[in-house]
């Protein structure tokens, strides 16, 4: 943690993420017009930024600032649940596959490779067509495409750690594989998983926004950032604020997660830490 | 200890370390890793630097090679190599270095020859072809199998002993006047170690090079070095001809340390306590907290080096006192 604070870039990422999390947690109280998530006011359509509406209003006359704030909660919920679901699938698979060299390990890793080979957006779009398009479908699709990254990471860590002397010593004491994997290998692999999860959050937010933009993610009138950018397309370039502020929110939060993830990786891996300077 | 040299007659020296101190600032305070280390190495001489881990061996080595870590300060002292202070003007190519671990010292993805030739490019006269010929000759000298082809092999194609031969050849490639070796045989088996040491000895004396040999193994020391400096906590505790020091150690630390050697000990005792951290060196004699014959004065005054005979010094005023039986086992 101390080392993380010494790295100004990672600090910036950390601050961005913390800020976004706070905004998400207190969104209904922070937003000047919390009801603008659903209500429309056609009389004040597409007003430019002013003291009353700092980010302007959209094509239904809703306050963009409020919608960006309310959208933060959406974005973070999607990111956290997708990454958690991906972890739930990927981490156990990586542990099991990495522990022994047998047919099961081969099968698991080949399945992982197959999923890794499928482009994430294509699978999400296909799933969106198969099932009803919506946020849940998008989330399912993202989880289904993101778990192989966890499986790969944990697989590599497990293979590295199973050769470690302390694992050998535990086996010598008669510890069961479950005990070794859950109590020893998993905590030692935790930094790598954490880094992967942080970068995955940013990645998921971006992909979820793209899906929203393409119309297979969140559905109107939900205050989704990607959706807002899509809706703003018809009003460009005159109503520049409509697309700019939700887009900026996406950019900042994704950037925040990526900077934090890079910083964490540098802390977790001293070898990388030096070579970056 | 600075007067050690003042009292010694000025003889032609290959390397003279005079009152050298190296301090490294850390989070826990300033680490006084070396404090007033002095010794002289005549041309063609061989000096062993012996001590336990944390005594400052590797920092001394780095100072001599001019590769002190970033942030290290040298508040006092000189390292004179052929009369030139190498702390101010580093010499390149005239000091050969044999590293500790032959497995870690060669990059596995490049041919051995390319790595050695790269090292020679800037420090040895002549063309790349000259260098190749020279290395192949050296490979003959270090008895590497198939010396003609060795340049084109990858490091993993050599065994540990062969790699160490390769690195010895590399150290000699620029015709240095001094070879510095850092525990070159710790990673090897005893049978291989013996061959490598014999080889090193003969190569050095044939070429009349000086040898500075860092080790923690008294057995290795006695088969390679004429003189020895025993380091303790960043200072020279005892200095003299290897045979004399091993047969008749004077400093309480050297006496107790040698009594720990399994070939020597009548009972296994060890030395109570631990080597002090470099950031918390005790005042006065740095060995006094562990010394069975320490007196109140030892905690106050830094012991002056006492001359026992020409070329033999001990940093303990009470070196003639007997140690209690229990301390020697």
């Amino acid at each position, binding site marked *: 943690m101390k080392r993380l604070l010494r790295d100004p870039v990672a600090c910036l990422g950390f601050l961005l993420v913390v800020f976004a999390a706070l905004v998400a947690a207190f969104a209904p109280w922070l937003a000047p017009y919390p009801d603008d998530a659903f209500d429309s006011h056609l009389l004040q359509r597409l007003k430019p930024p002013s003291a009353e509406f700092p980010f302007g209003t959209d094509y239904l006359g809703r306050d963009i600032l409020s919608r960006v704030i309310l959208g933060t909660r959406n974005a973070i919920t999607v990111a956290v649940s997708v990454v958690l679901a991906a972890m739930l699938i990927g981490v156990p698979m990586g542990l099991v596959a990495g522990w022994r*060299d*047998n*047919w099961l*390990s*081969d*099968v698991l890793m080949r399945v992982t490779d197959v999923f890794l080979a499928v482009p994430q957006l294509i699978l999400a779009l296909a799933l969106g067509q198969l099932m009803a398009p919506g946020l849940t479908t998008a989330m399912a699709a993202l989880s289904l495409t993101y778990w192989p990254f966890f499986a790969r990471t944990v697989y590599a860590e497990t293979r590295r750690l199973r050769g470690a*002397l*302390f694992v*050998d*010593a*535990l*086996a*010598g*004491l*008669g*510890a*069961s594989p479950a*005990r070794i994997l859950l*109590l*020893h290998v998993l*905590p*030692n692999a935790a930094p790598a998983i954490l880094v992967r999860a942080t970068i995955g959050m940013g990645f998921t937010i971006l992909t979820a926004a793209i899906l929203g933009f393409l119309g297979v993610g969140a559905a109107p009138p939900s205050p989704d950032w990607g959706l807002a950018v899509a809706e703003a397309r018809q009003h460009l370039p005159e109503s520049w604020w409509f697309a700019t502020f939700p887009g900026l929110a996406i950019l900042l939060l994704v950037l925040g997660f990526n900077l934090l993830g890079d910083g964490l990786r540098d802390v977790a891996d001293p070898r990388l830490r030096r070579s970056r300077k | 200890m600075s007067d050690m040299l003042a009292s010694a007659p000025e003889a032609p020296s290959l390397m003279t370390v005079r009152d050298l101190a190296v301090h490294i600032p850390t989070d826990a305070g300033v680490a006084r890793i070396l404090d007033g280390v002095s010794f002289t190495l005549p041309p063609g001489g061989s000096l062993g630097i012996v001590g*336990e*881990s944390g005594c400052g061996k590797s920092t001394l080595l780095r100072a001599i090679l001019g590769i002190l870590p970033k942030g290290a300060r040298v508040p006092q002292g000189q390292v004179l190599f052929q009369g030139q202070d190498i702390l101010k003007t580093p010499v390149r190519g005239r000091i050969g270095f044999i590293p500790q671990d032959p497995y870690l010292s060669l990059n596995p993805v490049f041919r051995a020859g390319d790595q050695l030739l790269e090292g020679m490019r800037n420090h040895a006269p002549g063309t790349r072809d000259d260098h190749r010929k020279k290395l192949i000759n050296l490979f003959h000298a270090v008895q590497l199998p198939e010396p003609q082809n060795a340049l084109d092999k990858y490091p993993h194609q050599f*065994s*540990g*002993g*062969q790699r160490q031969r390769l690195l010895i050849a590399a150290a000699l490639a620029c015709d240095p006047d001094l070879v510095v070796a850092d525990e070159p045989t710790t990673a090897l*088996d*005893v*049978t*291989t*170690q*013996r*061959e490598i*040491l014999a080889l090193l000895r003969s190569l050095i004396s044939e070429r009349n090079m000086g040898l500075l040999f860092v080790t*923690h*193994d*008294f*057995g*290795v020391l*006695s*088969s390679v070095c004429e003189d020895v400096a025993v380091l303790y906590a960043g200072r020279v505790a005892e200095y003299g001809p290897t045979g004399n020091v*091993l*047969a008749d150690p004077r400093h309480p630390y050297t006496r*107790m*340390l*040698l009594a*720990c*050697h*399994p*070939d*020597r*000990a009548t*009972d*296994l*005792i*060890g*030395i109570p306590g*631990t080597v002090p951290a470099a950031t918390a060196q005790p005042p006065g004699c740095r060995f006094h907290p562990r010394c069975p014959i320490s007196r109140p004065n030892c905690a106050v005054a830094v012991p002056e080096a006492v001359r026992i005979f020409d070329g033999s010094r001990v940093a303990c005023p009470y070196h003639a006192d007997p140690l209690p039986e229990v301390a020697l086992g």
Partner: protein
Amino acid sequence: MAEMIGARDLVVELGAERGLFRRRAGVRAVDGVSLSVTAGETFGVVGESGCGKTTLARTLLGLQRESGGEIRLENAVVSGVAPSLARRQRAAVQYVHQDPGAALDPWWRVGATLAEGLRIQGLTNRTEAADRIAETLRAVGLDPAFGERYPHELSGGQQRRIGLARILLLRPKLVILDEPTAGLDLSVQAAVLRLLRDLRDRFGLTYLFISHDLSVVRRVCDQVAVMYLGRIVEQAPAAELFAQPRHPYTRALLGAAPRLDGKAVAPTLRGDPPSLRAIPSGCRFHPRCLHADMSCLEREPVMQPVAAGHSVCCHHWREAA
């Protein structure tokens, strides 16, 4: 005297792979080893790196499954079972790693690691576990407060002590010590060896002592077996082996050890040990042996008795003496 552990014609193959996509033959790291360790003694195994001494230890422990031969523990045959079962069966045998610091999980406090061994063995009572840990830490010369530390906060000597405490907690009868003094300073080494001797007397332990440091082996071992390329080439009481080595390899090994007086006592041994993948015909040592003749090239020597408790695996031990 009762036998603690014994082996007959033990063969261990390493590195054989049987995956879905790869298949590879292994090497015989231990090839026909027979030995018998008497209860209460320190049995040394010496040899160069790659001679199979660590593999032998891991097989006796049960972490590595043997491919042939028999292992006896207190006169009961325990070989022929899978490693997971073998470790439960052989709880009386415990192993101390060469680098006990790396054998500790860096995320766990030392005390938690010590308690874990007890939990694996089925002791779940926390107060009893804490008492036993404190008692054992004192036995290895450490303050019980060391349980609060993390592995990286320990010195090399303290790590060895923790490594010992960790297995002593489990009340073993046979302790396999893998290079217990490697990388230790002389003064610390002496203290550790003394501790080992005290613990053996106090807990009635038997040691299998694996080392390449002949000075140490001579100092602490009762019996010594010399291994070369997976075979035992000579075995004798320590005093006799060091005074009258019979096998040319033993003699070269003893002669190569650096001596404090700097004198050389035997001719050097030429070359590096050959690889296990290309084992020489006949006597495995013949390419490096000064006494080798045609018979060494053609016939494999067998163990022959030299004196009581002293046997050697060489055609020419009589002439070469």
